[in-house]
């Protein structure tokens, strides 16, 4: 009996790592630019459809297109921040929010117009293969996508810790005035950050295709999911996003297994409410 639970938990952890990568993008954007990307999940779904189309037309494996799609999303994010969002950075919160709600509505409905409301499955040839590790049965697609997510997240960690640009971006997040005083081009760093955030969500969306079917209605759901994860993990904490993602992944898997799959996100929301009340800065966040 316990081996079933173990399987469910491991599956949750693996799914959670992809969630974590998606939330990482949101966390990076909010931590530095201080703008809430309300269109986050919608961008993930765009990546899902892009992967789906590439797979259907050219037969490209999602694992092959992760980096190209992430790069494309980086450019989109860079441009979006430069053209649109930079002029909103100083504006009141609700105005930023509404701007991005507008972006989200447009993205999700354009997808709806192109692809229709039905789910689009990507049938990988190895979708049903699995590894047997002792009592565990691990799906090939889950382990591949989770490892890829982990590698990309590690790359981002390294970038922020060691590269000069990464350190400059962290400086903007820590002390905006100070960063401007020492001559950093804050607006450009913001654009880079938004690009990186979207690259994360693009990669996460691409990997998500391996374990879930694309549908426009997933957009708002993923946005909320990313928010929940980031708040639970702690805004501004990169490790927190991954931990929160794993936590939500496991909670979803267990709730889906023990109670009912359609009620799984209810537990995520309950978790969010509990965290907001008991520890508003999140599990790994600093007091804001």
């Amino acid at each position, binding site marked *: 009996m316990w081996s079933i639970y173990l399987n469910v938990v491991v599956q949750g952890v693996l799914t959670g790592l992809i969630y974590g990568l998606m939330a990482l993008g949101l966390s990076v954007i909010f931590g530095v630019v201080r703008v809430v990307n309300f269109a986050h999940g919608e961008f993930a779904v765009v990546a899902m459809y892009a992967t789906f189309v590439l797979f259907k037309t050219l037969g490209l494996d999602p694992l092959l297109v992760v980096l190209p799609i992430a790069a494309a999303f980086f450019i989109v994010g860079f441009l979006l921040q430069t053209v649109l969002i930079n002029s909103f950075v100083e504006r009141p919160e*609700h105005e930023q929010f*509404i*701007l991005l709600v*507008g972006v989200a509505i447009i993205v999700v409905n*354009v997808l*709806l117009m192109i692809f229709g409301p039905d789910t689009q499955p990507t049938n990988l040839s190895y979708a049903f293969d699995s590894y047997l590790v002792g009592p565990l049965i691990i799906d090939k697609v889950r382990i591949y996508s989770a490892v890829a997510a982990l590698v990309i997240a590690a790359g981002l960690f390294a970038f922020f810790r060691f590269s000069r640009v990464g350190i400059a971006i962290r400086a903007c997040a820590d002390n905006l005035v100070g960063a401007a005083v020492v001559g950093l081009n804050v607006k450009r760093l913001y654009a880079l950050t938004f690009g990186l955030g979207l690259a994360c969500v693009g990669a996460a969306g691409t990997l998500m295709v391996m374990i879930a079917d694309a549908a426009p209605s997933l957009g708002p759901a993923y946005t909320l999911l990313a*928010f*929940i994860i980031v708040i639970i993990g702690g805004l501004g904490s990169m490790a927190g996003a991954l931990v929160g993602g794993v936590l939500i992944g496991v909670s979803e898997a267990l709730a889906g297994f023990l109670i009912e799959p359609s009620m799984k996100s209810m537990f995520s929301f309950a978790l969010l*409410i509990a965290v907001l009340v008991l520890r*508003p800065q999140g599990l790994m966040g600093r007091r804001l």
Partner: protein
Amino acid sequence: MIAVWRGLSWRQRALITLFFAALVLAPLIADRYLVSVLTLILYFAYVGQAWNLMMGYAGQLSLGHALYVGLGAYAAALLWIYAGIGPWLGVLAAILIATAFGAFIGWLGFRFGVEGVYFALLTIAFAEFTRIAFDHLSFAGGSGGLFLPYEQRRLGEWWNLRGGQLVFYYTALLLATAAVIVVARLTRSRLGYHWLAVREDEAAARALGINAFRAKMAAVMISAGMTAVGGVFYAFYYNNLFPGQIFDISRSIEIILAPIVGGLGTIFGPVIGAFVLTPLGESLITITERFGINAPGVKAVFYGAVLMVIIFLRPSGVWPWLAGVLGVSERKP
């Protein structure tokens, strides 16, 4: 109410009278379709006004107002279906339940310092939580929906909101008018000034001895109660309720569009916003259908674009500008 009226210039009085008279007399010349559009406009003006009270005046961003619409709608509909209690009593239950929810969310948020975007997320979380809960409440129809019976013999009972189109049109007009009066009255009250102080600078308001917590709680509760009344109207107008529709986040966003486009924190902003947006959306549907495009997303894409353009160019909304042109600017409270 009289005090508010006295505070207006003759131009403002004349315009309001004309506008109101036109709405009262509209069904005389308008056809069925136009009346239904006007009903929709007035409904959005009403719920927009309720949201505006909380965001525009007290400065608390809620993105989960669909929660109160849904709760009000379900409360009244369930009472009607199971106990035969009409909406005039059911609305009290609706207000009570929604106010209690609003109070709980407000308390959670304001007590624990959950502010701004975080508070908005808390409101979304509650709306989504409730949506999924209602999906699994079998006595409320679950995800299959709740249907109000359509009974021929009750059609004349306008007091039970059972009747033709005009019953709903005038109910919506009554609601929208009442909301305008209530908000106008409240914003010139002691509480209204407290809201403005909290909105502008909470720390300063506290320093002046204003109980910010109480002011914000009052805003959430009044707004929730008002929105629930809109929900009762919705239930009896459409006669069917689906959790996936009524509690959905897109509904919450729909509610906030009119006040934002019209002008946050103005009394006529939500009304003007509804009069701009709803006809635009309707005509867009007609136009796309005429061109043979039957794409469900067109209207929403257009709304998204409107939202972005308005917030980009005129973040304070259409009404302050329009009022300036007409020479009827609202007195800055």
